[in-house]
């Protein structure tokens, strides 16, 4: 007589042992929905679901918030709401550390079938699972070991059309924990009351027993939020390496630009920077700017800029050339000119895991030269590639300590999209508040995108 199968809560508790502080975690429908409720606090991880919730505390009674399974949930203090396309971007763009799914079948090599069973074989119900499994660094399947009929859900090769190839890393079932791999399945833990032979008997794939085989435990980790607040601009940027690609927000005028971070970057003196920005520094030389306002020019004049990718790279006036223009004319910098909408779209695609896209703008002009042209449905398009950066320096109005950001007026501009495309995103704000003080409906940049927060000193001037 084999042991008793674990209940979903116990499976969730074992699965929760894979969590770590600061993790961004996608939860699919089914047993994964139990995870938040099994932790004493979820403020150390971002539990998100394809329903558009970022920060799940536990199952609850808020009729306006549901998880991936359609269960009503309570929002984490400091959580936020977004739409499905933004969630898809988070998942596909590689912004999640872990995904927990309940497949109906997993193979020894990590292939999985999401919801389909033999009873509904002609139907494919991928839901969000395809995106969740693709983007996460580690994918954990949490599922019953067997169908109710007694047939195994863990197989050598999936017998139904799969929703992902080789993507499941760890399988937590109601009887065991296994790891997948090119050499097949490895049994690493068994539930109390079960024997290795009993697990083998209910597994429809060869099973290598780990030399470190353990009994499953159900202690959940205690997790807390990462400290994202840095004391100064230089502290927040001191590891920017030479030759880095850096997103710099800002529209054209003085607003919405991370002046304080820019000064920090100049004072650090790091060279060979490749800036991605709407302008390459025109606030000083344009009619709406001022000759002494801080802009990209301070980096150019300090010989730190090797390249700019921008839509307004030069001054509107020939008689007042910008610092970047001077450097470019002297052959000291490279320049890539991109129309503004294409720049925004390239950044959005970079952040959302879209490799390339066909845009109609610029087709047939010099801006499309050397790029693939294609007619789709009678209209001409040009292929443009997604754009990513190593760092980004952006300007918010307020941030909470979890990194959620709100903006003010048109200073929003490129900030939200740039925050999604950099490996490390640094935000400069007028005010840092506690989680919960920014409304979940008003947060524009979710905290999971922000790595470092710096307070713009109250006495800091944007003018030299």
């Amino acid at each position, binding site marked *: 007589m084999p042991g008793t199968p674990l209940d979903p809560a116990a499976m969730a508790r074992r699965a929760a042992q894979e969590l770590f502080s600061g993790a961004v975690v996608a939860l699919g429908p089914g047993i994964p929905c139990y995870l938040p409720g099994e932790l004493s606090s979820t403020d150390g991880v971002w539990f998100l679901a*394809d329903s558009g919730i970022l920060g799940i505390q536990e199952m609850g009674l808020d*009729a306006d918030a549901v998880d991936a399974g359609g269960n009503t949930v309570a929002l984490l203090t400091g959580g936020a709401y977004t739409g499905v396309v933004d969630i898809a971007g988070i998942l596909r763009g590689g912004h999640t550390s872990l995904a927990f799914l309940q497949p109906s079948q997993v193979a020894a090599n990590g292939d999985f079938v999401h919801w389909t069973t033999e009873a509904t074989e002609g139907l494919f119900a991928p*839901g969000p699972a395809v995106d969740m499994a693709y983007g996460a660094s580690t994918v954990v399947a949490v599922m019953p070991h067997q169908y109710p009929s007694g047939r195994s859900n863990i197989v050598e090769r999936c017998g139904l059309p799969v929703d992902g190839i080789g993507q499941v890393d760890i399988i937590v079932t109601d009887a065991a924990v296994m790891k997948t791999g090119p050499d097949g399945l490895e049994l690493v833990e068994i539930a109390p009351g079960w024997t290795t032979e009993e697990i083998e008997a209910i597994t429809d794939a060869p099973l290598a027993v780990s030399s470190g085989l353990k009994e499953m435990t159900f202690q959940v980790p205690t997790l807390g939020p990462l400290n994202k607040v840095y004391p100064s601009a230089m502290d927040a940027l001191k590891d920017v390496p030479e030759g880095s690609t850096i997103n710099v927000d800002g529209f054209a005028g003085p607003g919405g630009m991370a002046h304080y971070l820019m000064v920090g970057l100049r004072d650090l003196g790091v060279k060979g920077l490749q800036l991605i920005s709407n302008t390459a520094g025109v606030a000083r030389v344009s009619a709406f700017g001022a000759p002494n306002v801080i802009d990209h020019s301070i980096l150019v004049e300090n010989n730190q800029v090797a390249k700019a990718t921008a839509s307004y790279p030069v001054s509107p006036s020939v008689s007042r050339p910008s610092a970047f223009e001077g450097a470019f004319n002297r052959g000291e910098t490279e320049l890539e000119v991109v129309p503004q909408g294409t720049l925004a779209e390239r950044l959005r695609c970079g952040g959302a895991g879209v490799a390339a896209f066909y845009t*109609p703008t610029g087709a047939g002009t010099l801006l499309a030269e050397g790029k693939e042209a294609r007619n789709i449905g009678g209209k001409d398009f040009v292929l443009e590639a997604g754009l990513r950066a190593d760092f980004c320096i952006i300007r918010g109005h307020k941030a909470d300590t979890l990194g959620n950001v709100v903006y003010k007026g048109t200073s929003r501009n490129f900030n939200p999209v740039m925050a999604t495309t950099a490996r490390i995103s640094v935000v400069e704000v007028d005010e840092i508040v506690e989680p919960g003080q920014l409304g979940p409906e008003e947060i524009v940049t979710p905290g999971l995108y922000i790595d470092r927060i710096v307070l713009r000193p109250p006495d800091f001037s944007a003018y030299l």
Partner: protein
Amino acid sequence: MTSVPDNRSANGKVYPSALAALEGIADGSSVLVAGFAGCGIPEKLLCGLAETGVVGLTLICQGAWVLEEGVFGVADLVANGQVKKMVSPLPFHPEHGGPVKELWESGKLELEAVPQGVLAERLRAGGAGIGGVFLPTGVGTRFAEGKEMRSFDGREHVLELALKADLALLRAKAADTLGNLEYQGTGRNWNPIMAMAAAVTVAEVDQVYEPGGIDPEVVITQAIFIDRLVLAA
């Protein structure tokens, strides 16, 4: 239903009933329906759609995998025989399928299951004027079958084309008379993206404010995307 009748009144875009707001819908239309698991579903507009009696519809929506007692949802339109095809990530729940499963099994309903992120991205492309996108998701699975593949940075990607529809049925918490929308909780879901991807958009809301009644920093769907409004109650 490709143009909006010029019959706006002093109430701006607010229409007196769901039926009035759906004027012009024709048999065979493609309809985007917002909502996720009972959250943010335009129930009154769906009832209105039933009342119009149009048939041969293609519904693009999350699916009918959560069936709520007493709530008129896409499954009920399907049960009415008005739907020819459904495009959805989770068309029905395998264990309690309802009308969608029954009609699909009897060959009276066509289902196209698509990964949620792919559907979202196709609608976004449609709304943003993008012709197509190369996505890494779905590679090697049936979702990529028959589609153009290309390698970027050594990784295979699938070409997915933009998707647009004739009509979008949306659900928001509040609007102003200009059509700016704000949502509540996960009621946001498909709404903002669907608002961009249809020729005509109709939003069902709990409340309509005068312009200025919604903080400009919290407007999620901008008025330019919304053609018609109807009150839920």
